[in-house]
């Protein structure tokens, strides 16, 4: 097995000092988080955050009720999951009485928009949550890591400055973070939580401030002729195994068990495994998120078949921004655009 060293850029040697600082910042953020949660926990019903899992490259959501577990909390580019869905989906919180104390939750920039959308749609009231906002410089897509180096038995994964450092069975891999960030992060406009009670660490610089950067991948598809786009989606969606992970991971797919893709009353889909079924399933998912999707990318992250399903919603988000000037998850008082109308817009 070849050693997976990534070539260091010439510039890199010069910034090792900053690298140490960056690492320190991360460590500090984590300590700051622990401290803040420790202070807040007595006033909270529970704290939802990220903890290390058996795979050092991926975190797992953790639900903390007693102070002993606070040390398990972590933050940083490996904390990819959007935790906000747990606030509204059974039974995670079934045991929590409605009049209980607020629930603490860690959110990145994109996660915070989901939270805003959930508050906006009245699934949640603002005072039910204590929001620990964590500015984000992007999260690691472990599949991109795996595509660069063969992962056998990763013992540890740490982020130092712009690098992801892996210890895999005694071999050290150093990979540029930029190259393994999730696709959605590369056009991120909101790395800093848009809603929060406390903010941990320093604010991050948006990677994008314009539609072109944010929707670059959408544009890449749209540049292709119609037939090619169809061929592309046929080949991508053909892999869909209808495991519904994309749906279940979506914090705004609030129907969950009642989703119409599984019912026969009404009966939108059959059990057949043909491309039309898969297309319609993803249409249903996308159309139900039109004007609501906050672009957190969970659907794509969880897809075991690596279908770029977030891209479908990105296109609808782009339509909403261009046609109706609306981006979801920014204003808790706004009405999602497809739930309202404007008689005057004759030229939309």
């Amino acid at each position: 097995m070849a050693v997976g060293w990534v070539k260091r850029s010439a510039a890199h040697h010069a910034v090792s000092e900053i690298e140490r600082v960056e690492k320190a910042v991360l460590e500090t953020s984590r300590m700051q988080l622990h401290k803040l949660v420790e202070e807040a926990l007595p006033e909270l019903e529970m704290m939802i955050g990220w903890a290390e899992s058996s795979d050092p490259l991926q975190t797992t959501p953790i639900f903390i009720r007693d102070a002993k577990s606070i040390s398990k909390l972590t933050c940083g580019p490996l904390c990819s999951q959007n935790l906000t869905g747990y606030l509204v989906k059974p039974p995670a919180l079934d045991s929590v009485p409605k009049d209980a104390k607020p629930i603490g939750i860690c959110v990145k920039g994109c996660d915070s928009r989901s939270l805003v959308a959930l508050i906006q749609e009245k699934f949640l009231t603002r005072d039910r949550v204590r929001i620990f906002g964590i500015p984000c410089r992007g999260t690691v897509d472990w599949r991109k890591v795996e595509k660069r180096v063969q992962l056998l038995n990763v013992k540890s994964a740490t982020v130092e400055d712009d690098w992801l450092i892996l210890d895999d069975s005694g071999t050290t891999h150093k990979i540029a973070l930029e190259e393994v960030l999730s696709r959605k992060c590369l056009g991120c406009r909101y790395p800093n939580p848009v809603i929060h009670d406390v903010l941990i660490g320093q604010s991050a610089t948006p990677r994008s401030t314009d539609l072109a950067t944010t929707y670059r991948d959408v544009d890449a598809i749209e540049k292709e002729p119609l037939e090619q786009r169809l061929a592309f989606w046929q080949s991508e969606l053909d892999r869909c195994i209808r495991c519904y992970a994309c749906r279940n991971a979506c914090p705004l797919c609030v129907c969950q068990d009642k989703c119409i893709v599984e019912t026969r009353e009404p009966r939108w889909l059959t059990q057949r495994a043909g491309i039309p079924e898969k297309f319609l399933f993803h249409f249903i998912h996308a159309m139900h998120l039109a004007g609501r999707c906050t672009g957190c990318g969970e659907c794509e992250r969880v897809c075991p078949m690596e279908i770029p399903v977030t891209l479908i919603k990105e296109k609808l988000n782009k339509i909403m921004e261009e046609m109706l000037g609306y981006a979801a998850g920014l204003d808790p008082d706004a009405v999602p655009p497809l739930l309202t109308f404007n008689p005057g817009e004759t030229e939309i």
Partner: protein
Amino acid sequence: MAVKIFIATDRLDSVLEKLSTKIDLLIPASLKDDKSAPTGFVPFVPGTAPAFDRQTTTPLKKALLPQVETLLRFEYHKDPQGSPKSSVTVDDQRQVRPTLVFGARPCDVKALTTLDRVFSNGPYVDPYYVERRKNTLFATLVCRQNDAKCFCTSVGGGPADMEGSHLRIVPVDGGYVVEALSPEAQTLLENLADAPDSARDAQAGQIVEEALKRRVGELDTKGSPEAFRKRFDQTDYWFQMINQCLGCGVCTYVCPTCYCFTITDEVENLKGERLRSWDSCMFYHYTLEASGHNPRPTKLERYRNRVGHKFSYIPERYEGLLGCCGCGRCIRSCPVSIDIRQVVGHLKENTSE
């Protein structure tokens, strides 16, 4: 008796092409052009590059239990003269072609022993499965490289376990040594390629030797059925273990031993089909009764049932056989990093915790 051949890496495609004239071939391959894309078992056509270097994303089971298959076709016949009576005819014709799965992993093939018990050893025999099973041969790749999520030896398998296999493929320098383990497999190997030279033969033997000794995974499943029963009503335990579960069906759909299915009718005017398709015990509708009652209404009961099914119910029903082959796919694919080894491993811990 042992027939062995050596297939050089650069000859693999042509040998497979030759083999495919004798029998339909399924090989592990990328599911799109990109080599690093998800993989699965696909029908071999010349030029398809096998993906032997890693475990497939989707499991082998679909070779025997397709995601969707037609159980039967029915047709209503009307009296054109206008009598209101119509009659129905039903047929369950099946066509199964002999198939060789070339390059499955031992864990995948081992998983079929679980399916065999369910589909062919009960009071009722599933003819669809059984006919495919009878007509499918397996050339199994000795597994040289496992990752941190594999745990086959913990559940009774192993990287060189050839139970249920007809051919053994050993990756050696420059190619593969393929050895027939059954008479029908011998005929398949005839005139395909030369026997391996002694160095390669020796290397293959050594690799198998090593693989047989290798321990993969540290999960101890002894006593799991009893421990599960004790844990069954401890809601806190299950919350703690799987509160983060999203309730999706990834783990069941990528699992080689999960076999649960549903049956639905689809009809167009007078003709229709009864379909069998994969279902998942993680889904709400799986157990939803017409009355609205659902014995497993939340993911807690559903995940608990999944663990129970694999590590308690199947062993109880089928003399200790586990419903898990240790392939680790559910761990690899879980969006929230639930590790079934931890859930099962903790079953036996001090229950007062």
